[in-house]
């Protein structure tokens, strides 16, 4: 059910995205930072599922909250002539790598354990 919903969402988003008119060049930088923030939330969500402390409310608020906050910070940075979006990118991408490392460790551990069990059974 969840997988189907995700698939439908992705396909619909892609189709609609291909058919929408081009947005103004000025807003594309905001959209870019929002995408990075949303991706960060997705990886955070996967990590929390692995850690078994996943909370849907926190996930949703993080997804939209981070995106909106990063856009607002980028606008503020432009008004102050400070490239705040750089800080946002560093934080988000850094967190993404951390989360990816956790996910990787989890699956590598799982896989090596399975391999070990198989070998023990053979012996």
């Amino acid at each position, binding site marked *: 059910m969840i997988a189907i*919903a995700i698939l439908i969402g992705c396909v619909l988003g892609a189709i609609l995205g291909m058919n929408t008119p081009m947005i103004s060049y000025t807003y*594309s930088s905001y959209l870019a930072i929002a995408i990075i923030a949303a991706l960060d939330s997705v990886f955070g969500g996967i990590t929390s599922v692995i850690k078994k402390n996943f909370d849907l409310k926190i996930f949703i608020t993080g997804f939209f909250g981070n995106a909106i906050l990063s856009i607002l910070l980028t606008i503020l940075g432009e008004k102050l002539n400070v490239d705040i979006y750089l800080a946002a990118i560093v934080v988000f991408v850094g967190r993404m790598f951390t989360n990816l490392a956790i996910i990787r460790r989890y699956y590598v551990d799982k896989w090596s354990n399975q391999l070990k069990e198989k070998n023990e059974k053979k012996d």
Partner: protein
Amino acid sequence: MKNKKAISIVLGLMCFALTLGICVQLKTVKGSNSVISQNYEENNLKAEVLRYKEKYDNKYKELEKAEKELEEERQKSIENNSYLEQKEEEIKQGNKIIGMTEVTGAGVIVTLSDSKKDASTALNVSELLVHDADVLSVINELKNAGAEAISINDQRLVPTSSIVCGGNIIEINGEKVGAPFEIKAIGLPEQLAALSRPGGYLEILKGATVGVDLKKLNSITIPKYTGVITYKYAQNSK
């Protein structure tokens, strides 16, 4: 069960938002074929240029409307006056010759585009490009073959036109024009097509792997010159 449904709907919506954002962003980046910059100053400049262009276009439309009105007034005033009608005819003829009116007729379209060959394999990169001199030579040959009206990328050639090198573009009538160059010429198509004769200039360009294309057409529309021709120093001699 209810909880699961809610979760799946929410996740679907989030995926929808994320893919939508990514697709729109990709499209925008692809569409604006320039280096992405998040610099406030640069974006401002870009927006300003676009604003001025829009202003110019609006003014130009107004000018065209005013010209149309003038034309109508003229038509009205010359009615029932054969002398004025004759003069009007003369003006029209003159405008056609100097390129101040849009003209249609049979002719050829010559397209010159930069070579598709990898520049790193060429001994002389300059040979792979279309230069102002190449365009000039082609224009000269077309004129020699009896072309009556010529335009390059919709820049009409008039008596005051110049074709000069401007770095990676060429300037025609002071306007920047970039490759590929679409040269439209009105005249007898068979005669103009002699441009591609063996030993002709197009043959030389082809030898330099420059993209050359010549099409004969029964109807070509060449736009009018959008600038103003003013003569300050040339006076009528007695």
